[in-house]
């Protein structure tokens, strides 16, 4: 169970910018010891924040980061698998090099971090893992076949790892935001975003705080029975 005195250790992947950065700030504000990573050095720093230069698609780098976390902190309470890459293109103009790249990061990276994270969490019989997915999965969005397929894989991983990790006191859930103003969708035309939002029950853009709210719920000690779930924002 979480230590009532020592602040929890929360690892968030993809923290150099966008949602990952906002989530890192959010959990720093809540007193967590936050570990983050990105392929480049972090363009920001804060007290209580530890950054690793890691490409989650590279298994060796992921293992080294978790080994360092074990040695520096001796524990991991929370893992938010936020790092991901998008590929928005018609299938007819999508080469397999893009398929490989997206799957290696979004599926392989998420899997490697879940596996290594659970190894650390199991010792204290407590852990919370939150994976990032997308409304592109239930909406079957045209032009996002590979991105959405990679996130459908993340949702299946979430459901199965929830079962495999349950005996260790670890829950695994996923949150799927609607479009949020980040670099990930910067290149998408405004009319396409509006058309996408129109397919939601609540047709407005989300804020990072909307995702943080769901992450708070999944990470809560009180959510011990909440696992294997994928929660979409906005009602797609």
């Amino acid at each position, binding site marked *: 169970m979480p230590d009532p005195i020592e602040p929890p250790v929360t690892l968030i992947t993809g923290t150099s910018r966008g949602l990952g950065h906002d989530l890192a700030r959010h959990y720093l504000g809540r007193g967590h010891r936050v570990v983050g990573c990105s392929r480049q050095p972090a363009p920001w720093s804060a007290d209580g924040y530890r950054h690793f230069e890691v490409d989650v698609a590279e298994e060796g780098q992921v*293992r*080294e980061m978790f*080994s360092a976390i*074990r040695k520096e902190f001796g524990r991991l309470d929370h893992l938010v698998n936020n790092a991901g890459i998008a590929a928005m293109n018609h299938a007819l103009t999508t080469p397999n090099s893009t398929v490989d790249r997206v799957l290696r990061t979004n599926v392989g990276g998420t899997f490697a971090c879940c596996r290594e994270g659970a*190894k650390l969490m*199991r010792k204290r019989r407590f852990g919370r893992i939150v994976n990032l997915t997308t409304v592109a999965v239930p909406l079957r969005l045209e032009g996002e076949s590979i991105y959405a397929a990679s996130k459908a894989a993340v949702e299946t991983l979430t459901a199965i790892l929830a079962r495999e990790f349950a*005996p260790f006191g670890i829950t695994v859930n996923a949150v799927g935001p609607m479009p949020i103003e980040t670099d990930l969708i910067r290149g998408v035309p405004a009319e396409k975003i509006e058309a996408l939002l129109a397919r939601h029950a609540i047709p407005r853009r989300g804020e990072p705080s909307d995702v943080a709210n769901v992450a708070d719920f999944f990470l809560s000690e009180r959510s011990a029975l909440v696992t294997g779930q994928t929660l979409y924002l906005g009602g797609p």
Partner: protein
Amino acid sequence: MIGLVLRLAREVAESEQIDLPEDFDSDTRLFGDTGLLDSLGLVSLVLSVEEAIEDLTGVSVALADERAMSQTRSPFRTVRSLSEYATALSEESVAGSH
């Protein structure tokens, strides 16, 4: 290595609240019908051994890879076989890291 694996197997058995047999030694079966551990206990032991090897040698090894899983005589069947397998693999990794 055998001493290390024996100690870790004891720790896993204790944390899983499994009673150790009086004659517990390096030839005790670790899993299977008459084995000491269930599948999750075995996973915990393998992960603990991996971690201990990393702490001792600074090299990370993956004991439970496809090779181990596909061997007809599983290297995880007894403390002795697991120790021998872990020794061979860590020596390979240390040699490969130079």
